[in-house]
């Protein structure tokens, strides 16, 4: 057991802290009000190797590891959650399955530009009637001999409005159903018959893009199939197993960011002749929350370490995700509370954390679904 960060992990932390302090945090509140997708920040992150941290250099990545990826996601999210969302969906949800399940040709053609940050990625699994039950996919892909024909739609897809490359699931054999009937495909934004819907207006992570993907006789070449026909659901679940580590890191980030803002406010605001942090109830509550943030971070690091070692991490990432997203909510809620009325006023950043925290308990599998995974594993 080793709780020491490596030199590379230390430097990554230092680098991302500086980047967030100078580039991400100063514009976060304004961008949130404007619902502005962070186009320039994403471009800069690509140049700094932040859009493919844990992928090997030969596939355009930075050659780092999941721990470094989590450090970056946590800090980005602590500064501005939506930016963390963009990077996480791009890196683990879209580039991930091409790396783990794609052919060498697919990696060269699709993964390299994604990992370098030259193209942005998105992942389409959820449909109107296939949410938690994501195997209930209605979107179909039919083998037309020299191409695939895709029809249907996906909803709530992160990055959709700005992505160049999409990975999706579609039913290739209804009779076989979830296991064996679903396949996994790569879609280019310019594929004929493919389009995206209007931007969703959201409670939080308002600077991220969330749209419907629409397939109307969408024609794609045969070489866009990832893995074998029928392996789609397995690929999607395998992808989520590792990607949830990133959402868990986002949860820690929201909590950490809310903690820092609240700590500063409590140290300045005086009532009854003393600062708020001198009252025992808020002080002890902060001690408890801080401890839980640290516990969540350790769960994240544990899952990330397993992923780095190529070991199964499904249970660990599920535990990390629901625990971290819960502390994100609790910390943000208490953060608003300890700001008093100011916490409810939009001039103060803490309300943004309060709104951004909630999505962590929902996307990439709700907390209930995470508990389904954990209970399934421990009560067998």
């Amino acid at each position, binding site marked *: 057991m080793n709780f020491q960060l490596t*030199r*590379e992990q230390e*430097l*990554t932390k*230092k*680098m991302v802290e*500086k*980047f967030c302090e100078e580039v991400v945090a100063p514009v976060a509140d304004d961008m949130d009000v404007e619902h502005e997708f962070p186009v320039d920040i994403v471009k800069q992150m690509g*140049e*700094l*190797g*932040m859009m493919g*941290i844990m992928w090997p*250099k030969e596939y355009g*990545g*930075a*050659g*780092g590891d999941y721990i*470094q990826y989590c450090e*970056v996601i946590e800090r980005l999210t602590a500064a501005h959650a939506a930016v963390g969302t963009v990077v996480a969906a791009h890196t683990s949800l879209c580039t991930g399955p091409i790396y783990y399940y794609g052919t060498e040709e697919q990696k060269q053609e699709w993964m390299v530009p994604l990992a370098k940050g030259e193209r942005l990625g998105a992942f389409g699994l959820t449909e109107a009637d296939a949410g938690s039950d994501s195997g209930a996919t209605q979107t179909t892909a039919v083998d037309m001999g020299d191409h695939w024909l895709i029809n249907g739609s996906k909803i709530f897809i992160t990055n959709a409005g700005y992505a160049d490359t999409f990975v999706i699931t579609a039913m290739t054999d209804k009779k076989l159903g979830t296991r064996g009937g679903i396949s996994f495909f790569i879609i280019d934004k310019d594929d004929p018959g493919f389009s995206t819907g209007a931007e969703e207006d959201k409670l939080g992570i308002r600077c991220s893009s969330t749209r419907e993907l629409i397939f109307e006789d969408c024609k794609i070449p045969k070489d866009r199939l990832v893995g074998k026909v029928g392996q789609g659901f397995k690929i999607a679940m395998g992808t989520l197993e590792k990607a949830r580590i990133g959402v868990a890191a986002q949860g820690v980030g929201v909590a950490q960011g809310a903690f820092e803002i609240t700590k500063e406010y409590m140290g300045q605001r005086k009532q009854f002749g003393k600062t708020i942090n001198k009252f025992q109830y808020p002080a002890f509550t902060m001690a408890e929350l801080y401890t839980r943030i640290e516990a969540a971070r350790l769960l994240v690091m544990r899952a990330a370490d397993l992923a780095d070692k190529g070991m199964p991490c499904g249970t660990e990432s599920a535990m990390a995700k629901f625990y971290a997203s819960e502390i994100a909510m609790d910390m943000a809620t208490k953060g608003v509370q300890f700001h008093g009325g100011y916490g409810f006023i939009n001039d103060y950043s803490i309300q943004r954390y309060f709104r951004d925290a909630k999505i962590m308990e929902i996307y990439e599998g709700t907390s209930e679904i995470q508990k389904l995974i954990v209970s399934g594993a421990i009560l067998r």
Partner: protein
Amino acid sequence: MKAIVCVKQVPDTSGVVAVKADGTMDRAAMATITNHDDLAAVEAALELKDKTGCEVIVVSMGPPPAEGMLRELIAMGADRGVLISAREFGGSDTYATSQIIAAAVNKIGVDKEDVVFCGRQAIDGDTAQVGPQIAEKLGLPQVTYAADIDKDGDKLTIKRLLEDGHMMLSVETPCLVTTVKELNNPRYMNVGLIQECFDKPLDIFDYEALKDEPLIDPDTIGLEGSPTNVYKSFSPPAKGACQMLEGSDRGTVDELTGILADKHLI
């Protein structure tokens, strides 16, 4: 072609100054940062590398932990580092320091097309003497306060920033250029380069490595050999809160004179 950049690790001035018994600063006891003007020099060299593909070598004189700073500069894009570190060099003033650094730069080798970069001055000493002294010792032409640098063969065209304007100068390489932090925005470390920075070459020049260099005179290096001596280092007492007045109208001036009169200053 090479760009050799001299960089100093300085105490983080937002912290408290720790002082040793001999009056010099206890660097080991203070949080450190890379000197701002020097970071501008590194960025200028990296921009030259972007344009010409030249090799960038970062050089620092300091205690062993300064290696960490050099690794960070390599993670920004420098190709290799040289750390000048020896007990014999400790406590050097600007005269001794520039002598040692000049010897190290000379050992690295300055060829026809090369450029040596230094930051204008370090925030701890604030002398702005080391860069020009290195140039003198190496017999290189020098251009200070560079704001923009263009290279064409063995000629550099440099925009020199002055208080009330700028000056365009053309200088032949090899030469030494000093930069100010207002020049550019130093880039961030790159995650991909962070992965490589600990494997890139970093040479340590200790006393043994430099003592036979022609530029080194053992009698004029280190604390003992330095012609200037620090009498005392201390954290100045905090000044009172500052009051800002805005506007250039009569009313503001009246307000200002009123305040000064109240304090019996006028």
